[in-house]
């Protein structure tokens, strides 16, 4: 569990690493175009009947081509996909227990992977502030945009904080009992929640200090 936490932290930082260092024709495309295209691909993928094998392979080919042009390391993309795979697994499991599910679970899994890959590609080739700008231009309510922006901003602070707490805990954990670990983890999660809400208060104060209404 703790290992997964640490890995998650590293990979999230990697995303930003790529924003900063990587350049490609895909990175340079207008954000609005990328988001629009992603939406079209996702909606079409979800709606298309599973029998259209050729169509799905076409989309997959397009995504792979984009991934190559974007120069994102394949291993990095694979790891991101793996990190999101619980969602796919969940969808597939639910599907498998439905009357017709045993026939098409593979198709559903393929569809989900295509959608996730689309999202991963867009989010890793578009700076977050540009995504926000697009949302603003299509009139997403300002309150929602502020919430998303703050969430994105403090995700990193929270993750760093979780990681610091994990390290501090790990350096004082001498016993190996599993139950003890779970209990400690519960404390960490609780602490993180308290710290997050206290930080939220301080952030709000700081915003007010600069005239937020």
């Amino acid at each position, binding site marked *: 569990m703790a290992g997964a936490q640490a890995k998650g932290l590293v990979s999230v930082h990697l995303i930003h690493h790529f924003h900063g260092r990587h350049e490609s024709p895909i990175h340079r495309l207008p954000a609005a175009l990328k988001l629009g295209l992603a939406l079209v691909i996702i909606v079409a993928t979800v709606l298309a009947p599973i029998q259209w094998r050729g169509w799905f392979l076409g989309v997959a080919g397009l995504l792979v081509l984009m991934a190559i042009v974007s120069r994102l390391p394949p291993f990095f993309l694979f790891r991101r996909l793996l990190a999101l795979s619980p969602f796919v697994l969940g969808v597939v499991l639910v599907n498998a227990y439905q009357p017709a599910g045993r026939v098409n679970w593979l198709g559903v899994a393929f569809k989900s992977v295509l959608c996730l890959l689309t999202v991963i590609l867009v989010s890793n080739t578009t700076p*977050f502030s540009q995504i926000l700008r697009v949302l603003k231009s299509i009139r997403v309510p300002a309150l929602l945009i502020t919430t998303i922006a703050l969430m994105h901003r403090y995700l990193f602070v929270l993750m760093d904080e979780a990681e610091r707490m994990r390290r501090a805990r790990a350096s004082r954990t001498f016993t190996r009992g599993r139950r003890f670990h779970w209990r400690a983890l519960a404390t960490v999660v609780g602490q993180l929640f308290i710290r997050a809400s206290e930080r939220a208060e301080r952030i709000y*104060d700081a915003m*007010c*200090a600069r005239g937020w209404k």
Partner: protein
Amino acid sequence: MNAAIEITNLKYRYHDGTEALRGVSFCITSGECVALLGPNGSGKSTLLLHLNGILPEKLSGDGAVKILGEPVAPEKLEAVRRQVGLVFQDPDDQLFCPTVQEDVAFGPQQLGLGDAEVAARVQKALAQVGLAGFGHRATHHLSHGEKRRVCLAGVLACEPAILILDEPTSDLDPRGRREFKALLRQIPATKLIATHDLELVVELCSRAIVLDRGSVVADGPVFELLNDEQLMLEHGLERPHILWHVHPH
């Protein structure tokens, strides 16, 4: 001379009943640079949050805190926050926008300035703190020292008459500290600095106020106070080494 900050018998109690401020009074004249000293938990940060009306939660406008002669009251809040720039201790609390540019622009935008004026202020503030050209950088990718300076720029962009800093040099490396001090020296605003960095106090401030357990225990010229070893030790401070080398006369 007119008073920039006037505090009379200010009291504050936290929700859990802890008395944080027990009747604090002092007055700071316009243009002064004053250090607010005191051990951890003495009420420094709590006091600072009163200066632009973030605390108490329910502003009574009783006149315990006056900024430029005006009591901090609910209907005056906007005017007060225009005058008082508060730089928070943890830069991560203050920098909440995705990019440096947006963060520094936040204050001026809240002031209702036009786009051109906002952009001009952002550029000026970033240049002032030595971060010209940093506008597009992501705030969470800056070093701690850079974050500090962006925080300061975000407040300077609002052009406040009074600048309040909560431990501005904590966690900075010596060079960062030196540069930040030089920066502060160039800012003409009235300054109140809560800090444990006694070298900074000696170099920048003319007057110091010592707070302990929510009360003012000393208020006077920096050299006089910091040289009083017994006073310093009693209140969790010390006579800074720099005073062994500096001669006030």
